[in-house]
Each structure stands twice: as C-alpha cells, then as structure tokens.
C-alpha cells in the first residue's frame, strides 16, 4: 500500500551549526513519483535520511498518511532506501542480501526464498542468487540493491542518486527499470538527483532544492515554461532574460512593447523565453536583430542574437542556414513568454 508522504516545515542543522535544510514543506501523493532535484551539497540526502528515520530533524515533522513518524525508528517505517552506492553486505550471497529485510522481520526460510527469487526476477538478476556481491558489476549490484529494497514491500521507496555512479547506457537502463517497477508496484517513490534530465524524464513532479530551500514544486513542464524565479529558470538551462515593466498584458522592454499571453500582475518583472521558442520571423512581438554567433549542435543550431543592448539565444532547426553578421527579424511569441517578479 503506497503512502501519502508529508514533510512539514522540516529544518536541519548539522552539529557544526551549518544549515542543511530550511523550512521544507512538501507533499507526495500516494503512488506518486517525485524527484528531489538540486546541485550536490544542497541538502537532498539529508532530507532522505530524515524521511528514512536515519536522521532526526532539528525541527519539523514527517507524516505518513497523516501519522507523525518523526520519532519512529527506521526499521518500523516501511520505508526502503537505495543509496548512491549499492551497499550490499559483502559477507552475504546475493540471495541472502535480498532476503535480509524479510529475515530481519522474522519471515521463514521457505517463504523468504520464494520472494527473493521473485524479486531477483523483477530486476533480471535471477541467475545470480548464489554469487557474492564482489563478483557483480556496479550495475548488477545496484539492481540487487533495488530488489533488496523492493522485496520488503515498502510503502515508500527512497532513491538517493542510485544511478549516478553508473555509465550512461546503464543509467538509462536503470531509469527504465525504476520507472517500470514504480508503475507496477504499489509504493510512493522519492528520487533524489542532481541531474535535471533524470528528474524530468522520470518524475511526475519535481521539487527543486537550492541552498536547502525549496524553490519550486511542480510538474517538469512547469519548470521549463513557468519558472518562479531566475535561479529556477537558470537551473533548467534558461539563458534569455529581459527586464521589463508590466501593464495591460504587455511588457515595456528594451526590445519594445511585448505582448504576454500569461496573466501577470503589473509592476517590474523579469521576462524569460526558452531558446527553442524564439522564432526568426516577422510578426507580433518581433524586432530587428543581428546574428552574433552560431553553434551547430546536430539537431539544432544555437544562434546568439543582438538587438540593441540585449542579447538573446535562439535554437532553430538546422535546415535554417544563417550567417554570422546577418540581419534578421526575431519574434518572441506571446504564448512562450513568461514573466516573474522578484
């Protein structure tokens, strides 16, 4: 049975006095796959350890289905965790590793054996039951670690960058496997990652943590198209920013008056648009620009445009061939322009 996880105003300070997490409030619905995204050292792992019960937060509460879990020891939380390293027990065989959690809960040998076999099949490691962890590759070890966590039938699965130590192909394979296991299983998943691509491709919702503070908690699509502030936008690769004053659904900017589709309160704001949304054509919201440089990226060409004092990036399909120094018309479609005030 999957759980509804609620973090209520969690703060944590290390014993050195350094703040790891500040006032984190977050809810993950039952069966949801949520990514906790942020650069390394932003307090993500601390949050996972607090949820798992390995760390007690300095302040705040962890709730599962409305029950306060803050003081409950990890072994009674029905929360399984897969760490960055596989952390298989080196003195036990693969089968004994996977069966560890069941044995600790007092399950009999035969039933344990049956479930271990099933769990190993789920991660396609059925032929390795009698091997020692040191005989397996990194990817295989991490798959066994996944089986070891899932066999305990957790209500909540915590993944702490479990793919970051693997090479690119394997990482892709593990993501697919995780997605599949989450879809077929009955548990809520919280994935910690520093890789926004991973968060976007796996998660239903992303919580972006910068300097221990939650910046934004929304769908992947919202992070690209409706970032709440400049840091969030920059974390997701946005490079085009324009200062402006909003009035009557349009913004007064150095590029002239630009129409906005999204309702934005009047006042000063920062406008942003993704490079791939910039059009090189005339029309509404267009202005003359000069091509400053071009970078060929295979599936698209990234142009740097100059219009007065403003520089913008535009990513266009590679069949559009334009030379450096050429004058063009650039257009920022109203529906792709997003504004936030800070």
């Amino acid at each position, binding site marked *: 049975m999957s759980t509804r996880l609620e973090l209520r105003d969690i703060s944590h300070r290390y014993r050195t006095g350094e703040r790891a997490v500040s006032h984190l409030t977050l809810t993950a619905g039952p069966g949801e796959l949520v990514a906790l995204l942020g650069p390394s050292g932003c307090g993500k792992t601390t949050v996972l350890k607090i949820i*798992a019960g390995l760390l007690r937060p300095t302040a705040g509460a962890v709730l599962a289905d409305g029950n306060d879990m803050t003081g409950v*020891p990890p*072994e009674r939380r029905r*929360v399984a965790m897969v760490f960055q390293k596989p952390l298989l027990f080196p003195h036990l065989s693969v089968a004994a590793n996977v069966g560890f959690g069941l044995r*600790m809960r007092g399950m009999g040998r035969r039933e344990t054996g049956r479930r271990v076999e099933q769990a190993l099949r789920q991660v396609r490691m059925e032929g390795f039951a009698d091997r020692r962890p040191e005989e397996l590759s990194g990817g295989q070890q991490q798959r066994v670690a996944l089986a070891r*966590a899932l066999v*305990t039938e957790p209500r909540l699965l915590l993944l702490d960058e479990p793919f970051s130590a693997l090479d690119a192909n394997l990482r892709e394979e593990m993501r697919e496997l995780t997605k599949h296991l989450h879809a077929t299983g009955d548990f809520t998943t919280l994935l910690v990652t520093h890789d926004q691509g991973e968060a976007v491709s796996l998660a239903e919702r992303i919580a972006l943590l910068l300097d221990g503070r939650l910046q934004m908690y929304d769908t992947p699509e919202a992070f690209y198209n409706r970032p709440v502030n400049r840091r969030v936008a920059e974390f997701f690769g946005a490079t085009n920013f324009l200062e402006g004053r909003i009035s009557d659904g349009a913004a007064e900017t150095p590029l002239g008056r630009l129409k906005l589709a999204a309702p934005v309160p009047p006042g000063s704001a920062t406008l942003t648009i993704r490079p791939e949304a910039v059009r090189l054509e005339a029309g509404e919201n267009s202005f003359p620009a000069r091509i400053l440089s071009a970078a060929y990226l295979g599936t698209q060409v990234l142009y740097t445009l100059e219009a007065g004092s403003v520089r913008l990036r535009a990513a266009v399909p590679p069949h559009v061939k334009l030379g450096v120094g050429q004058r063009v018309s650039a257009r920022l479609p109203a529906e792709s322009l997003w504004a936030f005030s800070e």
Partner: protein
Amino acid sequence: MDKRNRSAGIALALAAVLVTTPLLPLALWSFAGEWRFPDLLPASWSLRGWEALLAPGSRFTEAVLNSLVIAAAVTAAAVVIGLPAGMALGTHDFRLKGVVIFIILLPILVPPLASTMGIHLTFIRLGLADTMFGVFLVHLVPTVPYTAIILTSVFAERTGELEEAARTLGAGPWQAFWHVTLPQVAPGVAVAGLFAFLISWSQYILTVLIGGGTVITLPMLLFSAASGTDPVITSTLAVVFALPAVVALLLALRYLNPGNERGFLGVGKVS
C-alpha cells in the same frame, strides 16, 4: 596486484623463517640426550625433558591448564570490553576524546609493578589475592588497552553506511550490529583477541604478584627452570610456551594467500 600479493607472501614467509629459526635449537634441546659443544647436533636423543614434565608430581599440566583457562577468559573479556569502547571511539567524535584515549592507554604506559602493588592490597582486602579469578582480573589491565585501541582503528575505517542500509531494510539496532557490524569486524576482533591471548599467556610479574605462588602458570615454571641448570627441561618448557605464537603466525600465513580480499587478518590489505 597478484605480483604484489606474491611478494607480500614471500616477505611474510621470510619473517616466519626469521622468527622460527631461533626456536629451532630449543626444539632440538628439548629432545636432546647428550649435546656437547662444538657438535652441530646432539650426540644422542631422548624424551627426558617431556617425561619430566609429564611425570607424576610435576605441576606442568596444571600450569598449562591454568595458563590456557586464564588466557582464554582474558581474551573473551578483553574483547567484550574493548569492542564497545572501540566502537564508540572509532565511530563518534566527541569532546575530550583524546583524554579518553589517553586514560585507556594509561595501564600500558604506567609500569605494571607500580599499579599492581596497589591492586594487590585491594585484592587482599576483597579476598581476590591468590585466586585464579584475581589473576584473570589483573591480566585485563595490560590487555584491554590493546583490544580497545585495535578495535578503535577497526571501527574508524567503517562509515556506518552498511548499518544504515540494514536499518532501512527493517533491522533494529541490535540486529544491525549482530548481522552486519559483527561479521564485518570479525577479522579485527580476531587480531585483538590474539593480542589479548598472547599478552595474558606470557604474563609473569602480574601473575606472581596477585597469584602469590598459589596460581601456577606456564611462565612461572619457565622462569624457575631458566634459573636452574637443566637446559633440556628449560627448552621443553620454552617450546610449549612458544607454541601459541607459532600457531598464530601459521594462521596469519594461511589468511594471506594470494587473492584473499580480506588482506592480512583483515587489518588492512597488504597489497
């Protein structure tokens, strides 16, 4: 890595030869009948030494048994005391940790005679003087510091991550200790136990002071024989006395076969 392991094996075999060669004359003497200078080997062989030790009225068997019982009990107790101490010191950082380590090491820094004089008076009052139990207790003085310090370094290399993984899988703190920590530190515990055993086994002064001549151990027989004139008896005793150390060395050699990932008794990889 294979190459380095092999050279480490050769080095250890060489050390074994260096350690055991001086013992060879002792082994010869213990079976010698007549052996005059400058002969390389004894002129005749006999079991006189061994017969004398095993003869009725000899206290040899009693001494060996006492030594074994005391050393085994001391080993167990020193490990049981040293394990939590080493775990606390190796895993946690706290204020005055250096002072605590210093206090733990104090018994091997202070000359044993100085402290045992006082311990003796207390033991007389408690009725522990001249008893096996008293000797066992006083042997803990020089052994616990070693087990505690060895196990501190064993635990200092651990991160506690495996235990955290065990906890999230449903193991309680004791289960995690028993099923994960203990198997992981077993080689280190073996080394610590070996130290405790050998220190207790070779203890003379503390045994004499607290045992008061009532509790006879092997070193006491050896010391009195060595001040006598019969080299055969002395050598025979010395051979028995050296036996545990030789056995330990052979065990160490067994542990260090090439490709053994645990390394030398688990203290660390040799290669």
